[in-house]
């Protein structure tokens, strides 16, 4: 499980995740990911194109980080999820907690909204 943070502008990070966001993957990146994404005062656009599996612990990581950002008035937006991952998001109604869109352009549009 890996992630790469790139600053898009002064207020927004793009976070590209790749690998299996399962129990082991989530545990392996939890501390670093939370520090890099949730501890900074920036929106996070999370590109999930490279994530082929997401378990409940993966969801928990995304939800926790999104909640921290929301409290600070920042948004976490997920985009480009693969079909299997999108199915998991659908089951737990993730879109009621975190914006879930298809493209980066849509993700940027959510920030402007």
């Amino acid at each position: 499980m890996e992630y790469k943070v790139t600053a898009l502008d002064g207020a927004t990070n793009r976070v590209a995740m790749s690998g299996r966001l399962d129990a082991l993957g989530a545990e392996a990146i939890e501390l670093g990911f939370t520090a890099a994404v949730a501890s900074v005062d920036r929106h996070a656009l999370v590109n999930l194109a490279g994530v082929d599996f997401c378990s409940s612990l993966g969801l928990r990581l995304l939800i926790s980080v999104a909640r921290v950002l929301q409290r600070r008035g920042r948004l976490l937006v997920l985009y480009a999820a693969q079909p299997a991952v999108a199915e998991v998001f659908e089951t737990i109604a993730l879109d009621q907690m975190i914006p879930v869109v298809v493209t980066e352009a849509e993700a940027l549009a959510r920030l402007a909204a």
Partner: protein
Amino acid sequence: MPVEDTDSTLMRRPAEELLAAEPLGHALVLHAPGEAPRRLPLGPGALRLGRVAGNDLVLPAPEVSRNHAVLSLTEAGLVLTDLGSTNGCLVDGVRIAAPIALSPGARIGIGPFRLDYQRGPRAEMDRAAAEARDLDRARRYLQALLPPPIESGPVQAAWRFLPSASLGGDAFGYRWLDATRFAVHVMDVAGHGTDSALLAASVMNLLRERAGPDPAAVLAGLNASFQMDQQGGLFFTMWYGVADLAARRLRFAAAGHHPALLETAGGRVALAAKAPPIGAVPAATYPVFEATLPPAARLTLCSDGVFETEQPIAGRRGFAALAEWLPPHTTPLAAAPEALLARAREAAGPSGFDDDVSIVVLDFP
């Protein structure tokens, strides 16, 4: 034992163990003179050991060379290479003459330092042996809360519960609310370990008292009581249904849980209800749906541990696989959970399940 035997054993063993399918975790426990042992997880790549700064692990002692040795985590396992040091590297007391693949438990000696190599399935490495005893107690307690099977009457029930090594926070329950209404639920905490089991036990005990006839009210009540911010960051999914045997109707709602499957003479339907998990959204609402219960209806509920295995070997996985694995409707109730479990186990492959597996089957004759 002759030295040659020891060497060949050390070289052979890792290759055999690489056949194990599960991902492995690697760690070193560093014993430095006069210091408490320190555990160092190992990632892929090389770890340079030596006396001077610039090494990945600095071992400050005169007997250690400036650039003493390197440990490389490769596909062959963890390999120790001496970089031409003055005093050499010992593995289990024997000075190495060439790069060597280390067996789990190997003890590396470099000057006054000792490094113990640990390897195992990554998840298990992280949960120490001491924790296993506590988990076992938690598992026994949870199992004691599960309802007994029901062999006869207007609702019959059978189940299988297979806790994972680390306890995945699955639980389920069912009970009569009054003379005609029967409530059932399955839950799955998003986490592993004692904390997840404690949360599952709290919810089960609460539902023994508070299980009500309105699925929306029950889930909203739980959501108000178990917000993740106050639960150590834990949330859980649940499917909750109430069968009215007089009206032959089933009312249900779900919080982040995949659908239950209802089989009747007319076929099979997925009883889906979309809403967030309990604890994830403070003001969440839970829409309620209804299904009719014709004679000989069978309801199957489970946790996602049944179909979400990390390394499936055969066929499909995900919720779509579940319907394919259901045993024929005519399978006797008592054998149905085991039959479904057998199919799921086959698909999970040699590494087995990595989460709790719960299967509850109810018959409404």
